[in-house]
């Protein structure tokens, strides 16, 4: 071993080491040079690129949704407001294992397959990376606290609060005020680019009713926010902000008290009520029953709840009965009668001897009088126009209709809005059918037969009208021909709303304005003409309205109607959970306005009541109309008719003797 030491050449070894040290120094210099070259490349030559990337990382432009305008009734009661709810939201990028997360979440909060399916649908819509997507709406307090305890185990899941639409009257305004719901793919596709941007921050859009009609007013203008976010998508600060412009608050003509009263008056019946202020055309109440809870739609209705709504073919809660047509039955008789007077086909004295049926000359078929389905034979006997109204004599109108002819009927009735939609802001309302030769040829490919006119004369056959149209038409009689088109919107942000009406509907001009008084008198008799010794000489609604309320302090004009049910599906007829005979019952209708024959005030309310399978217009729909009118005149307007009468030297003839 000692030999090794001798072999060591210290000077040579030292020189070798120093050379190696020098090589190492060169290597160090080269490697640092490479490093600095790389850094210069990144920090000098690619600086602009990486600056942009850095800003793109952290700076996000996001939409700030505008608060939706509120909807008030005429007294300032809220019909639609915005309430905070708490939602569970997911940022997909931060969830490591989506399935495990969802299954763990379902042990904490209610989370069924339906929620998950809807969530997946939302995820599939185009989505900004790192944005949060709602998983469950409306968490309860208990769910919130259960989540809070476990939130550290659930990265990417958060609770966010949001203002959503709330409808205090729920089902009562489901059709008229309508509802908002999540914007769907088709609606987005239909929007212009500007609109799509305006809805960038919004989840909801008006789907039906006022919410849809005045979507533009209610929505407002989207705001923008430039925010700085950290790598978890949390907003760390706001760099710039353009505030959204809130949607406009609007006030409707609707009176929520009357809306509630109308809903109560209809009770458990399926049907609709439309009440109009004749002076302004303002719709005071518009109810369709049964309704549904529109609040369910706001936060995404579950498919189970939705199935219940759409599969109920008898109650059809989604179907708006107030704006869909039914055969109007005898409720069209006042209009036809006015047409007869105007065209000189009848006068105040003109009368027929009613045998109880009508025959066209040369035709053996007898059109029977539907109002006489009693054991007692015969007809109404000597019948003039007023009696034909208050007794609802079909035979009189068969004959009158036959003499007028369908062309005159069509021309005259259309002035009252039949077959048309007079409403200014209920564009979704159906127009029904006011038949004509052209209409029948176009829709059925058949010529018009004289028999068709006979059927149409009593509001059957091809004649269809919506409760809204009937209320509109009767308000024109209440206005003595002045047409004030029905409308929902009263004020925008407290400013009275005056719509520029193009092609305003002209007033109905009669040859003699006294015809209006004459018809009002006849319709008042429908309600107030009492029983007497004379055979069939009372008002059809006397028993149900005036006789039922001996203390009635005002007079109302009305007209009952019953309409035959057409076309019930076999499926419904075979179902066991309903008495089928009920579904075959006639629909009951009643149109009215009040007060009448009052020297001091003009009619304050015009109303149409439609009761599906109500069987009788006079006895079922009539009292409902009376109840709603009572609420309006006595409880809401608080008109003291007794005092009014005492103050004035009354000259109103008393009919109840």
């Amino acid at each position, binding site marked *: 071993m000692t030999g090794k030491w001798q072999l060591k050449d210290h000077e040579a070894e030292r020189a070798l080491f120093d050379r*190696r040290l020098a090589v*190492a*120094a060169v290597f160090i210099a080269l490697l*640092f040079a490479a490093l600095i070259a790389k850094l*210069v490349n*990144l*920090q000098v030559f690619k*600086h602009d690129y990486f*600056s942009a990337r850095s800003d793109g990382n952290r700076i996000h432009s996001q939409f700030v949704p505008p608060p939706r305008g509120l909807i008030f009734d005429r007294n300032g009661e809220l019909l639609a407001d915005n309430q905070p709810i708490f939602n569970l939201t997911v940022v997909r990028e931060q969830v490591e294992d989506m399935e495990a997360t969802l299954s763990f979440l379902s042990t904490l909060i209610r989370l069924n397959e339906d929620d998950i399916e809807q969530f997946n649908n939302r995820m599939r819509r185009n989505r900004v990376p790192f944005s949060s997507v709602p998983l469950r709406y409306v968490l309860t307090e208990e769910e919130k606290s259960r989540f809070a305890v476990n939130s550290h185990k659930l990265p990417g899941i958060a609770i966010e609060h949001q203002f959503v639409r709330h409808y205090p009257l729920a089902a009562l305004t489901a059709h008229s005020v309508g509802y908002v719901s999540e914007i769907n793919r088709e609606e987005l596709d239909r929007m212009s680019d500007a609109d799509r941007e305006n809805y960038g921050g919004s989840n909801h859009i008006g789907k039906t009713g006022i919410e849809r009609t005045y979507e533009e007013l209610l929505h407002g203008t989207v705001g923008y926010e430039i925010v700085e976010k950290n*790598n978890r998508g949390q907003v760390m600060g706001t760099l710039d902000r353009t505030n959204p412009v809130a949607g406009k608050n609007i006030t409707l003509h609707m009176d929520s008290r009357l809306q509630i009263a109308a809903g109560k008056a209809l009770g458990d019946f399926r049907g609709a009520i439309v009440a109009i202020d004749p002076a302004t055309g303002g719709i005071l109440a518009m109810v369709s029953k049964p309704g549904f809870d529109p609040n369910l739609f706001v936060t995404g209705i579950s498919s189970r709840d939705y199935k219940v709504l759409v599969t109920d073919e008898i109650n059809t809660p989604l179907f708006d009965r107030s704006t869909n047509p039914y055969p109007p039955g005898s409720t069209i008789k006042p209009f036809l009668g006015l047409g007869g007077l105007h065209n000189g086909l009848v006068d105040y004295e003109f009368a027929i001897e009613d045998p109880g049926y009508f025959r066209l000359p040369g035709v053996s078929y007898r059109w029977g009088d539907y109002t006489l389905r009693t054991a007692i034979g015969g007809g109404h006997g000597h019948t003039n126009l007023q009696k034909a109204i208050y007794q609802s004599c079909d035979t009189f109108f068969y004959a009158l209709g036959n003499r007028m002819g369908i062309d005159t009927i069509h021309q005259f009735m259309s002035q009252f809005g039949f077959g048309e939609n007079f409403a200014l802001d209920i564009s979704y309302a159906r127009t029904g059918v006011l038949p004509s030769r052209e209409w029948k040829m176009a829709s059925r490919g058949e010529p018009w037969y004289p028999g068709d006119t006979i059927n149409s004369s009593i509001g059957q056959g091809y004649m269809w009208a919506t409760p809204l149209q009937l209320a509109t038409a009767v308000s024109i009689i209440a206005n003595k021909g002045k047409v004030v088109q029905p409308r929902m919107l009263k004020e925008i942000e407290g400013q009275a709303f005056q719509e520029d009406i193009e092609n305003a509907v002209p007033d109905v001009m009669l040859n003699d304005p006294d015809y209006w008084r004459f018809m009002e008198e006849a319709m008042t008799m429908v309600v107030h003409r009492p029983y007497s010794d004379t055979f069939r000489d009372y008002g059809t609604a006397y028993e149900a309205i005036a006789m039922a309320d001996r203390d009635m302090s005002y007079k109302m004009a009305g007209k009952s109607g019953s309409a035959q049910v057409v076309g019930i599906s076999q499926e419904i007829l075979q179902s066991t959970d309903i008495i089928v005979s009920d579904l075959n019952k006639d629909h009951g209708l009643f149109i009215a306005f009040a007060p009448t024959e009052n020297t001091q005030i003009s009619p304050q309310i015009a109303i149409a009541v439609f009761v599906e399978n109500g069987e009788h217009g006079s006895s079922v729909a009539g009292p409902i109309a009376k109840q709603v009118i009572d609420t309006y005149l006595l409880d809401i307007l608080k008109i003291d008719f007794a005092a009014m009468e005492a103050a004035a030297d009354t000259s109103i003839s008393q009919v109840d003797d």
Partner: protein
Amino acid sequence: MTSKDFVRQSDGLGSAAAKSRSFWRLIRTDPPLLVGLLLLCAFGLFILFSASGGDEAVVQRQGLTMIVGIVMMLIVAQFNIHFFRSWAPSMYAAGIALLGVVLLIGVEAKGAKSWLDLPGLPSFQPSELMKFVVPMLVAWYLASRPLPPRFKHLFWSAVMILVPTALIILQNDAGTAIMVAMSGMFVVLLAGIRWRIVIGGALALLMVSPAWYLFLAQEHQRNRILTFFNPYRDPTGAGYNIIQSQIAIGSGGIYGKGYTLGAQSHLDFIPESNTDFILAVLAEEFGLLGILFLISLYLFVLVRGGYIAYRATDMFSRLLAGSITLTFFLYVFVNMAMVSGLLPVIGVPLPLMSRGGTSIVTLFIGFGLLMSIQTGGRVNVL
């Protein structure tokens, strides 16, 4: 002591400079190295304050660790380097034993079972100690053999290097294993191993590496390699770190965004911004100038280390000092290269900048050895 040293010392006798030099001699401390290290520590704490989002507790703990390290460095400097030389085989044997113990009862952290948690002692990583124990043993072995080393000596040196390396790989800590192996290899390189063997070995490694990649590499290692070549193959997964750190560095530009104004780091886009990726914070906030400043600090320490190796009186000291300096450089370079995307991601901290415990103390022990070599530490326990 060489005659040159003697002459230099005699020249200074009586002057103030000589007095202060003799003071530093007295406490066995190399002032330039100390100043360089203190500047690095201060700069490191300064950057860590920003990187941790102004967390004073983190900075205080790091400062405390540094003080412990500096004290350890000064203690080590008091020992004569030949004390370590004579104890090198025993320390190596003890180190191997500890590595064996770790394999049996070690504690796992971050996927590597490298921690030893003995009662009464702070938990530490024996593999860290091997970073200077291995070069010490190889230097001890080769210094007494004729240089350049012969094949037989190279073989035994390789065994000395590979045994602890293998044990550390078994702990699943490939990063440390590479650094330990390199610290031993630097000794062999400085000892004058013939270039054709070095080049031959490098070529062999190059040819074996595809086989390693295909058959031995673990999934995450393969991912790192793939990510290195194309960070955008998985931008939110494996490539996220490197993409975000490149964005931070690049957006810093020449002058940086200003202290504590680094958006990337303060909005948590840079992962491990306190530890391995702290350079990205520096680069974002102080730009290219900040990095150049840091590199010059490192260079200052490296030059001083090289000078100490150059001036050392015996071959053991030269080899050890050279290896410690080169290992320090390797840390600096690998970390910077990895953060800037020049090398695949390897978990290597940036010396004295990254937050850490054992690694900082180990580093200072290494510098303590350098100071012992430079000042001829007088405690000579044999």
